[in-house]
């Protein structure tokens, strides 16, 4: 039995069955990553284009590794949006790439909706690697995979996501994906970095950190774009750290086995103090490992590969 979705554009509206299948498949790929030879032949002969219009070393590397370990042929296309603006349209770019006979496109773009737009331009399978403020579904999938491996289940767990919620596609994908999986998600950040219409994302939103952390099994800190300070979203890094950063002091009031997560890259000493980031509750590097496994699962399931 395969996925109901043909593309991975986001997690909003993706069924529990589909998410479960991706996570189960990712678990089996995780075993492959433990082997000495970490490559399987499942996508041999498939060409996957990594179309990155926004800088992202880690997500691109993670996808590229996933593709190589599935024996697919990756093709990297990275560019800044500004140079593209002077050149051809996105439709022309994708149609030219498609004309070279490719099978899948992994896309990251600063504009929301680009993955959806690409499905109207090409017959290739589209995987969203982050679109504007909209979604970053493979990040949320790897987060759920990490929680499930750590705590053995998803249903009924409470997750607090802390930081710049408004600008975070990670927060959106997690809120929607985790809700589908029966988790309780609460979003927390300074009022200036929350959606103006707090009901928008469909999960509770608060600017009170203590309220958000109450009963949390998992705490996820988001990366703070430091330039938000100069745009007036908060007065100083110090005040942000004091109100929304997690340090040992705040951690000590949480249950002993609370799971600390971060999508990376971390601003050490801002949203997370180093001792918490490197401490025993942190699963940040496991997230990175699981990212490869989850992306292998997504590409494998959408790419119609042979059995692993």
């Amino acid at each position: 039995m395969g996925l109901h979705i043909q593309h991975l554009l986001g997690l909003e509206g993706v069924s529990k069955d589909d998410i479960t299948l991706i996570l189960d498949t990712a678990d089996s790929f995780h075993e492959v990553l433990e082997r000495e030879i970490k490559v399987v032949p499942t996508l041999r002969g498939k060409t996957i284009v990594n179309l990155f219009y926004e800088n992202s070393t880690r997500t691109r590397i993670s996808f590229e590794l996933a593709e190589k370990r599935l024996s697919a042929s990756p093709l990297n296309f990275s560019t800044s949006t500004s140079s593209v603006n002077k050149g051809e349209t996105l439709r022309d770019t994708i149609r030219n790439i498609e004309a070279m006979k490719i099978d899948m496109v992994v896309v990251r773009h600063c504009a929301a909706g680009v993955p959806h737009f690409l499905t109207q331009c090409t017959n290739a399978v589209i995987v969203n690697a982050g679109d504007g403020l909209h979604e970053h579904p493979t990040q949320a999938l790897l987060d759920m995979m990490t929680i499930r491996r750590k705590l053995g289940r998803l249903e009924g767990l409470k997750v607090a996501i802390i930081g710049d919620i408004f600008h975070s596609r990670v927060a959106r994908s997690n809120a929607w994906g985790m809700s589908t999986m029966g988790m309780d998600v609460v979003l927390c950040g300074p009022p200036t970095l929350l959606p103006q219409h707090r009901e928008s994302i469909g999960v509770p939103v608060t600017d009170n950190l203590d309220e958000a952390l109450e009963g949390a099994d998992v705490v996820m800190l988001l990366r703070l774009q430091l330039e938000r300070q100069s745009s007036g979203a908060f007065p100083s890094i110090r005040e942000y750290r004091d109100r929304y950063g997690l340090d040992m002091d705040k951690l000590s009031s949480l249950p002993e086995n609370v799971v600390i997560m971060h999508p990376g890259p971390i601003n050490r000493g801002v949203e997370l103090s180093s001792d918490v980031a490197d401490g025993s509750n942190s699963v940040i590097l496991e997230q990175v490992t699981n990212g490869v496994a989850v992306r292998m699962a997504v590409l494998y399931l959408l790419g119609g590969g042979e059995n692993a």
Partner: protein
Amino acid sequence: MLKKPNGATIIPPDNSRIPNPLLIINGRVIDPANGIDQVMHVSIREGKIYSLLNEIPLHTAGTSIIDASGKWVVPGLMDMHVHLREPGREDKETIATGTQAAAAGGFTAVACMPNTIPALDEESKIRYVIQRAEYCPCRIYPIGAITRGLEGEELAPIGEMVKAGARGVTDDGKSVAKSNLMRNALNYSKSFNIPVMCHCEDMALSQKGHMNEGVVSTRLGVRGIPTISEEIVVARDILLAEYTGARIHIMHVSTAGSVRLIREAKKRGVRVSAETCPHYIALTDEDVGLYSTNKKMNPPLRTASDRDAVIEGLVDGTIDVISSDHAPHVPEEKDVEFDAAAFGVIGLETSVGVVMSTLVEKGILTPAQMVEKMSHVPNRILGVSGGTLSEGAVADITVIDPDAQWTVDPHFFFSKSRNTAFEGFSLRGYATCTILGGRIVYQRA
């Protein structure tokens, strides 16, 4: 003659001859300026309304007869907010194609916005537009710029432009950000009895926004344009008008807050008129769907409660005019990612159908109210004499079939552009005949 496969035909006016007598019989004549709404016959001679009659008169051979049984016969419609794009962006629209689209939509007059390239910010450019309009199937009233180059820094020569034929001024596309300059523009315009037409937007609040800020934009991950970015400038411009005593016209009202501000201002006696557009009446931000760029315009589609408030404003008279904000764009400006897509939709050829289907058919506006807001009132605001079927008036007339069912197919548009928000919509009502100065310029079976 220009004919579309659906039979819609433009007949360019032959201004070299006096037009033949014309008789429009059996139509429901709706002329709110004269309080008429009944089946009558309209006799037209030498391009002017000769008489409105209860009996079909004897007529000479050579009189053309239009049987308007079951149809409405109304004063020629006016769209006071249109972007014709000429000069500068003739790839999007020209004065020729834009006026053809207008005639096909039932309009006998349009007011064109000055944000062309170069901007209509001096006498010679106003005169250029007026000269280009001469053989077009629709009258054009140019609107001049408030500031030179629409740059918001110094006043354009408003007096000279008015002398050349400009009927109002605006920096449409943006607000005059400096309140002191806007104050001067309002004070100065008082000498000419023209409206200062206000595009109300606080750029600091709407910067980088691409749709209404709300639940939908947050879900889609698109940066929003908040309602307050419009309302703050509506409030400012009302206060400036109140202080200076000048006359303003608030363009493309899209929010409940703007309607409330205008309603209160009118109660206080501020000289303010207002318009909204068919898309703000018929659509909401939910219609953006999955990033549909043909639902992207500025101001953006708002929520259902804003839409309802705008409709209420039309009903109670707070909003005086329905205009289209016809904004043509080439396909490559719309067939792109949502953030990169140009703002704006075309509307000349769908306005009548959308307004009739959304408001008139449902009994929200009477036919007479629709004619007031699309003909009589915009003529008054611009200080021109159209919009009535009074005896002796220039015979600009629109015949509308209120029962015609049709589906919006952009391929049949006379406009050069296709960026409609209503593609595929099933509408009821369209113009079957447009008469300009007693000459039939548009016909559709």
